[in-house]
């Protein structure tokens, strides 16, 4: 029995035109923006090492409309990563609270709650205590 390929290899990318798969592609593409953030942050640290004026200039550049827009896009993709991650992981390793298995929407809600708690703690303890003062 022989099979002959009908279409040339571009049919390999049939999935690029289906909405479900595009959502997945966006999920994977969020990694590009996360990488961008790492690079921007390292640049920030490097400017900091260079001294006050260089650092201030870089911060000012970050406030410009195009870079601020990029930052917001990065933030949006980071949140998209978080949400999709919280939907994926419980499918593989079910969460357990007490003796109960937490699934589906409940797992997502629990993880989002943990995200809020973790964010609060990381801001208060490390990133900028003045934003969320922990005592008084």
């Amino acid at each position, binding site marked *: 029995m*022989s099979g002959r390929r009908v279409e040339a290899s571009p049919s390999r990318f049939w999935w690029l035109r289906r909405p479900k798969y595009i959502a997945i592609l966006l999920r994977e593409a969020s990694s590009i923006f996360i990488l961008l953030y790492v690079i921007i942050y390292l640049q920030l640290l490097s400017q900091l090492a260079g001294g006050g004026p260089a650092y201030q200039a870089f911060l000012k550049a970050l406030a410009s409309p195009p870079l601020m827009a990029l930052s917001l896009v990065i933030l949006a993709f980071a949140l998209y990563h978080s949400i999709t991650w919280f939907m994926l992981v419980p499918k593989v390793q079910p969460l357990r609270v007490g003796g109960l298995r937490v699934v589906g929407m409940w797992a997502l809600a629990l993880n989002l709650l943990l995200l809020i708690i973790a964010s609060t703690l990381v801001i208060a303890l490390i990133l900028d205590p003045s934003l969320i003062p922990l005592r008084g």
Partner: protein
Amino acid sequence: MGTVRIRVKRYQPEGGAKSYYQEYEVPYTRGMVVLDALNYIKDNLDGSLTYRWSCRMGICGSCGALVNGVPRLTCATFLSSLRQPVTVEPLNNFPVIKDLVVNIDDFMEKLVRIQPWIVRERERPIEEGEYRQTPEEMERYHQFSLCINCGLCYAACPVYAADKGFIGPAAAALGYRYYLDSRDEGGSRRLEILTEGAGAYDCTFVGECSAVCPKGVDPALALQRIKLESAMNILSGLLPRRVVGRPK
């Protein structure tokens, strides 16, 4: 009684190498599935239409096709749930032999490659009796044993689309079924077979394989757990201390 429009992708190797779409009008009765429409076409309108089917009740796995762009069993897809014209195409990712018939040799090769049988270090002689298994032990792998080898999962997988060397959902789920079977002693050797080359680690957890499975198998879960078990296995081999969590 109305009619329903069925649009089928045709391809005849002897008629030149171009595929084309042909539309048919099929009388509709309540409860009709896509396979019924294909059979009507072949019996009454166009005897040259070529497609696979057998049990017509969702257990043999023969009748897989793309129905309105989604891998489905034609015997299990009701016309009433579909937008017209109902487009029927051969499954993605497989070479087309004729019309809706695809070559699944690669799929079959992979099923065999993962050694879908109980592997023992030492076979017990018959006098020692059968290998016993509790209901709980059976439950661990039961879901993964339900595969009917229909190939819909391979048609849905974008990783397989890009790389035909990818081990794929069904083979991984089947391998995992034996890995989880308490009677099996394949252990970490099975994990190696499942992760070598373009193995389980190539899966990017799209999840469409599990979404299209008509029997409720979750190959995506199998693939992620293979990655996890294999990684923990390799890690425990690299580190001096024992890592908890070995399955048996």
